[in-house]
Structures are given as structure tokens and as C-alpha cells.
């Protein structure tokens, strides 16, 4: 801890007295309109995934072209070309997806919607499924600690989504796709401008997707993917005044219903999970220039979200026991309000500072029932973070920039915290860019939501509530440091050929941990499986939780139209867990490699995409080492196997519309036995003579489904004269 403070102080001093800065990317809050940013030369084809050369922080961009490389029905499916972000299932029942960045769970990555924090709390487990990819214009993945302007919940990085803009001259954009597993997807986006100068403009967004037929390709009696119906509607407005004033506001509503679990035909009384998510969001952003040259301005962001979750997992009345239920049930509502007030000043090109106040309020009403219990009354938790912040940017031409930021936050359950952050960038020549950043991250944990997969187990869950039965929400704290070097190879003046190496390290000083453990049940003396939550530092001896990540990226365009990218990542993640024999963090892949090739013919009339990835082994939980299939142990060495994934897509473009066909998981690799104890989901005692492991669908590390083929169409109507 001490060394981190010393390093931070050093970096702060360095930044304050030697640094030179660069403009902070606040265009989403206030600044130039996206459509007026000058782009040097519009290349005939947009790169799909690339590292941004101009950003201070190491930022990977997935462009609209990148979002069209695969089926990419929603955000969860948009990261397959990226080694930085790994997407996996939370469990084998609900279809909830989670990302991993820098070897840590996605809950430590701040998700932003045009610089507004989103997907927090209840919406985190399914939030990736709720963002239709075709609503997006681009995604930016920033590694390490980022700006303090939106809080310090970004511990390992930040993913910002840019939606399609009201100023897009596309009155109608429609996409539809269908997969052979009966998953269908429809998006309609309409952007309208109401006058010549686009003073007022709006974009309407509609989405519906569904998985209409349950499949059980591995024959374990459980659906591979839940049946689901997801509907999302959004409307965004932009007012752009002649004096530079900008007002952006919008609303979004989501309803997502899904049923997973056992196939109906398996049993008269199948184990099922029913989940209903509903959400309503509204926001307004205002930016006002304070002088004619717009060198100082004020901005305000207000955002409100209500999220409601009703979920049950094998929750059925106990026969012959009136008023008692078995299974688990989690019902919750969350009111989230975010307010951010900023003052920005840039009197000259070298110096730029931002001062602000923000408040993030979350009110949870939660009911969690587990095991054989009577329905409980909801517990109410108020989590508030009131903060003041400042960020200074020094910019010395294109050669050097530094951003020094700090926040002072008052957390209603944890007191006052100070969070410094520093970002440095040095570009000594056109060919080289060096970056470094570091700082503190803080967030209130929501242990059950952060580990929603534990609801899909038949194990006892301990440590989620206090002595009064209320859900606990400790503050988590981390320090992240990292550096990046990018070499743009001199033979390619377009800058499309580069080699990038980065290293990032995240270390937690406070964290909620999840552990699996076998414990003696008293007074019966039987061994029972437990899922236990506890805070880092609860164990005797030295406690630690950290990850180190090394990543190499190479991209090139050897001939016009052909883009090749190759990425590799190594992860060393360690945690002290009382129930495990090793400190290697369970269920975290040790490495990943991705190769992507795209070829587009002249005028982009044909586009061919091919992606291959190799996914490294994960250490499994200790209790998984004993699992066997037909007498042979599944994880004899304590690790999952290495597996490849292949994706391919062909797109044919016509005037006004594109059609595409493709395939996912072409190697047809599937995780063996994704559901442990599938024969007895209601508990060991529910099946006479059953002596296998306890039911657990939360240990997912690989694909749940085999080859999937799909086809789709994109229709674009451009605004005419």
C-alpha cells in the first residue's frame, strides 16, 4: 500500500511540474460535434479494430465496420476480435455474459454510454445483451485507469460506446439476422435532421431479438441457451445552437424475458430459471460556452435509470410444507441517479483544466431467498458517492502530454477517499508512441449481482448478508499501473502497420472474494459444498489479489484491401483463497491469441472476414478436479484444455443494402459437462441413489454451443438533396 502511495505521489509530482498535456476527450459531454471532426483522408474502407494513435490512453477502437465483421447481435458478441476483452458466460443457464479485461471481471471495467456511466448494479450481468450492436457507431476500449471525470469505478479500464448519431444522414437503417439455432434479431434506426444546419436532430432506435426454440446439443437435459425475448427502444435528441451551445437528451426502455434450465420434456417438474429484466433510462447533457472562442465552458450531465429484476432459480413450493419454497429467488429494484457538473478552461493549446462536482446515488431494494425458506421482505440499501474532482492537462505539441487528475469522494458507507490518477504520453517521432498511466480505483461491490452465476448452483451460499439479513456492499479498492509502446513501422506511411506491446498490473487492497469450499456439516458430519463470500484480508497470513497482463498487437495491410491483425495476451492472476490449494486465480485464462484477416475488394462490394482464436487454459476450482466423465477425470491436471475458435463471414454489398452469411465456432468445440450435477438440480437428496457432485452451472469456461450458421441483411437509405 505504502509503495503505491509513494509511486502515485511521484507520478503526481512529475505530472504537475514537468508534464505537458493534451486535450481531454470530453467530446461526448461537450465539445465539437462528432460529424465535424476533421478526418485527414477517408480511406476507402474503415478498419474494423485498431489502436488509436492520438489517444493519451492505450485505446482500442472497434469501428462500425468491426461491428459488422460477425453476427454481433449485441455488445457481448462484439469483442470476439479482441484479445484485450474476453467474453464468457456467467453460467450455463441464464445466458448472462460477462467480460474480462486485464484478467479481472468486467465489473471492474467502467461501461460508458457516450461518457455516461451505464451497466451498473442490477444491469451489469445482462447489460451486454441489452445493447444492440447495430445501434452503435463504435466502441472504444481504454486500458488502465482513465479520466477521473466520470468517477473512479474504472479499475482495469473503460469501454465507451458511441451510438449512431442524430446527425447521421440516414433516415432509415434496418438490419435483420437469423441464426440456425432460431435466434433472430431486428434493428431499426432512423436519424432525422429538422433544418439545413441540423440545429435540431433526433435518432430513433428500436430493437427486438429472441431465441425461440430451446436446444440441448450436449444431451445433459438443460437448454444450451435460454429461450428469450428482448425488446429495446430508444430516442436521442441533439440541439446544436449557433453560439456553440449543445443540448443532448434521450430515453431508453428495455424489457428482457428469458427462461433457461431443464428442457420441458426432461421432467414433469423441471428445474428452470425465469428472469425478467426491465429498465427505463433518461438523460440530459448540456454544454454552454462561456466566451466567444469557447476556451472556457460549462457542462452538465444528468442521468436516471430504474432497473427491475425478478428472477428465480429452481424456486418451487416444497411439497407438504405450506409456505416454504426450495431453490433461490432474487428480486430487486435499483434507482440510479448520476449528476456531473463540469467547468473546463483552455486558454491556450498547452494548458487545459477541468473542475467538477458529481454525485452517484444507487438505491437498492433486494429480496434474496435461498434454500428452503419463507419468502423474505426486501432489504433497502442506499449507496452514495459524492465527489469533487480536478484534472489538469499539459500538452507540448504532439510530442508529449500529461493528464493529472484527482478526486475526493465521500462514500456514505465508507467515508472519504482520495483518488489520484496520472496519464503520460510521449511520441518522440512519427514511428513511436509511449504511454503510461496509473492510479486508484474504487467501487461499491454488489457481491450477489457481481457473481450472479452462484444462483445457478445447488450449494449453500454464505457471506452475502449481515447479521440482520441485509445484503452487504463493501467498498472495493484497487491500484492499477500500466505502460504501452507502439511502433508504427516506417515502410507504411498510412500508419496501418504497427506493433504494440503493453503491460498492466492491477492489485486490490480491498475486494469481495468468492470461494468454493467443502466444509463439515454439523451435527450430521457430512461434507457439504459451500459458496463463500468474504473480504480480501480475512485469511490468516499475507492476503493478496492481483493480475499482471502482457499483450502484443500487430496489424498490417500488406496489399490494398487486405488487413491482418495478430494479438496475443498473457495473464498472471493470483488470489489468496482459503478453499483453494493454489493461488492462481480460478477460471481465468492464462493466455489468448487472436488472428483476424479481412479482405475487401475495390469499392468494398465483397468483404471476407476470418477470425481464429486460441484460448488458453484456466485453473479450475479445487472441487472440479475430481469431476469425471465415463471414468476419466475431466481436469486431471487442474486446468481446462486449450481450445480454438473459428469465425468466418462473407458480405456482399449492393447500393442501399448488404447481405451476409457466416458461421461461428466452426471448430464445433463445446465445453464438456458445463453443468455439474445436472442429474440432480434440486439437490443430491432429491434423486434416490445419486452420489455425484452437487449441482453447479456456474463453472463455464468454453462455448456452450457448437457450430452456428447465420445470415442477415442491412438496409440503408441515405438522405438525398
Amino acid at each position: 500500500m505504502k509503495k503505491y502511495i509513494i509511486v502515485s505521489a511521484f507520478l503526481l509530482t512529475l505530472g504537475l511540474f514537468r508534464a505537458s498535456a493534451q486535450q481531454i476527450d470530453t467530446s461526448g459531454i461537450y465539445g465539437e460535434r462528432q460529424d465535424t471532426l476533421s478526418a485527414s483522408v477517408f480511406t476507402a474502407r474503415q478498419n474494423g479494430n485498431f489502436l488509436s494513435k492520438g489517444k493519451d490512453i492505450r485505446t482500442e477502437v472497434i469501428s462500425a465496420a468491426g461491428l459488422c465483421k460477425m453476427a454481433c447481435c449485441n455488445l457481448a458478441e462484439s469483442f470476439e476480435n479482441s484479445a484485450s476483452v474476453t467474453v464468457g458466460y456467467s453460467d450455463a443457464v441464464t445466458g448472462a455474459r460477462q467480460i474480462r479485461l486485464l484478467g479481472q471481471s468486467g465489473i471492474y471495467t467502467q461501461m460508458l454510454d457516450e461518457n455516461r456511466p451505464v451497466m451498473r448494479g442490477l444491469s451489469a450481468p445482462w447489460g451486454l445483451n441489452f445493447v444492440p450492436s447495430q445501434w452503435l457507431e463504435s466502441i472504444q476500449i481504454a486500458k488502465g485507469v482513465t479520466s477521473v471525470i466520470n468517477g473512479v469505478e474504472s479499475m482495469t479500464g473503460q469501454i465507451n460506446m458511441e451510438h449512431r448519431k442524430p446527425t447521421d444522414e440516414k433516415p432509415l437503417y434496418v438490419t435483420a439476422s437469423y441464426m440456425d439455432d432460431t435466434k433472430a434479431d431486428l434493428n431499426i434506426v432512423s436519424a432525422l435532421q429538422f433544418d439545413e444546419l441540423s440545429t435540431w436532430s433526433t435518432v430513433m432506435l428500436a430493437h427486438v431479438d429472441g431465441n425461440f426454440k430451446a436446444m440441448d446439443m450436449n444431451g445433459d437435459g438443460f437448454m444450451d441457451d435460454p429461450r428469450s425475448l428482448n425488446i429495446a427502444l430508444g430516442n436521442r435528441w441533439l440541439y446544436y445552437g449557433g453560439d456553440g451551445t449543445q443540448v443532448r437528451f434521450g430515453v431508453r426502455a428495455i424489457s428482457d424475458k428469458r427462461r433457461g434450465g431443464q428442457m420441458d420434456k426432461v421432467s414433469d417438474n423441471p428445474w428452470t430459471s425465469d428472469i425478467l429484466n426491465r429498465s427505463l433510462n433518461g438523460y440530459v447533457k448540456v454544454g454552454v460556452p462561456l466566451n466567444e472562442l469557447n476556451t472556457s465552458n460549462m457542462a452538465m450531465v444528468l442521468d436516471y435509470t430504474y432497473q427491475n429484476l425478478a428472477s428465480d432459480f429452481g424456486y418451487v413450493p416444497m411439497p407438504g410444507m405450506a409456505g416454504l419454497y426450495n431453490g433461490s429467488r432474487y428480486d430487486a429494484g435499483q434507482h440510479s441517479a448520476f449528476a456531473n457538473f463540469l467547468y473546463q478552461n483552455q486558454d491556450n493549446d498547452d494548458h487545459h483544466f477541468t473542475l467538477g462536482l458529481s454525485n452517484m446515488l444507487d438505491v437498492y431494494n433486494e429480496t434474496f431467498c435461498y434454500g428452503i425458506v419463507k419468502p423474505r421482505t426486501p432489504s433497502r440499501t442506499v449507496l452514495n458517492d459524492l465527489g469533487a474532482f480536478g484534472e489538469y492537462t499539459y500538452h507540448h505539441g504532439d510530442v508529449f502530454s500529461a493528464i493529472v487528475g484527482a478526486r475526493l469522494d465521500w462514500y456514505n458507507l465508507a467515508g472519504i477517499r482520495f483518488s489520484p490518477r496520472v496519464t503520460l504520453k510521449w511520441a518522440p517521432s512519427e514511428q513511436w508512441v509511449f504511454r503510461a498511466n496509473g492510479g486508484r480505483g474504487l467501487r461499491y461491490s454488489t457481491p450477489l449481482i457481481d457473481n450472479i452465476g452462484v444462483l445457478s448452483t445447488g450449494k449453500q451460499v454464505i457471506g452475502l448478508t449481515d447479521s440482520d439479513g441485509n445484503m452487504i456492499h463493501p467498498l472495493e479498492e484497487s491500484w492499477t499501473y500500466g505502460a504501452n509502446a507502439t511502433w508504427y513501422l516506417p515502410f507504411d506511411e498510412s500508419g496501418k502497420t504497427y506493433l504494440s506491446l503493453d503491460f498492466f498490473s492491477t492489485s486490490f487492497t480491498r475486494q469481495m472474494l468468492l470461494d468454493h469450499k467443502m466444509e463439515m456439516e454439523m451435527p450430521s458430519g457430512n461434507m457439504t459444498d459451500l459458496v463463500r463470500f468474504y473480504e480480501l484480508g480475512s485469511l490468516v497470513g499475507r492476503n493478496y489479489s492481483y493480475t499482471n497482463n502482457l499483450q502484443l498487437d500487430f496489424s498490417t495491410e500488406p496489399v490494398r484491401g487486405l488487413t491482418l491483425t495478430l494479438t496475443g495476451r498473457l495473464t498472471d492472476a493470483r488470489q489468496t483463497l482459503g478453499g483453494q490449494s493454489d493461488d492462481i486465480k480460478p477460471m481465468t485464462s492464462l493466455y489468448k491469441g487472436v488472428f483476424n484477416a479481412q479482405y475487401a475488394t475495390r469499392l468494398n462490394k465483397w468483404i471476407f472476414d476470418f477470425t481464429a482464436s486460441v484460448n488458453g487454459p484456466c485453473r479450475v476450482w479445487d472441487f472440479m478436479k475430481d469431476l469425471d466423465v465415463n471414468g476419466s477425470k475431466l481436469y486431471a491436471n487442474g486446468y481446462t484444455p486449450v481450445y480454438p475458435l473459428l469465425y468466418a463471414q462473407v458480405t456482399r454489398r449492393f447500393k442501399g443494402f448488404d447481405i451476409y452469411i457466416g458461421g461461428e465456432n466452426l471448430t464445433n468445440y463445446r465445453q464438456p459437462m458445463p453443468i455439474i450435477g445436472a442429474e440432480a438440480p434440486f439437490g443430491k437428496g432429491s434423486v434416490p441413489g445419486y452420489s455425484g457432485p452437487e449441482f453447479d452451472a456456474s463453472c463455464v469456461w468454453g462455448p456452450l454451443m457448437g457450430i452456428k450458421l447465420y445470415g442477415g441483411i442491412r438496409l440503408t437509405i441515405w438522405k438525398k438533396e
Partner: protein
Amino acid sequence: MKKFLLALTVAAAAVMLLTSAKPKDKSREALFQTNLHCKNCAAKIQDNVSFEKGVKDLSINVDAKTVRIVYNPAKTDAGKLAEAIRKLGYTAELIEDKSL
């Protein structure tokens, strides 16, 4: 699996060979000065003019606000191409029109 990779490689190589060939000598190149001002404008022109009859290649310089089009004179001419750009709401002044 090997067959699949082989087929994919052969298909990609064939497409590259077929499409990366230089335009034939009879092609012409027209350069237009326009009033486009952003990447979205460029995308709009790219997505529409690329599919005009006779267009063989197209590139846009946003800074210079120019559109370069390689076309087959047997199928279209610079006037028709300028009109296609104007239909999208932009000006189109022919700066140069030459044989390749």
C-alpha cells in the same frame, strides 16, 4: 478442418488476384472538388457513388474535399458522376478528367 482452411485460403487468394489487378488502360480518372466536410459525408458519397454504373474505384480526401473516381468511359462520364454527387446534396466541380 484442414479442408476448410485450404478452401478459405484458395478463395481469398483467387479474389485478391481477380480484384487487385490495375484498372485497364481504357479507364479514366476524374477528380471533383466538393463541399463535403466530414467522415459521414465521405461515407455517404462512398456508399452511393461506388454503385454508379461504370465506377471502378473511388477515394475521398476529406481535408482537400476532393473525390477521385476511376471509371469506364464506355459506361459513364464525368458529367454523370458529378450529377450523382450532387444528388446527395453536395457540390461537384470537375477539376481534372484524364485517361489512365
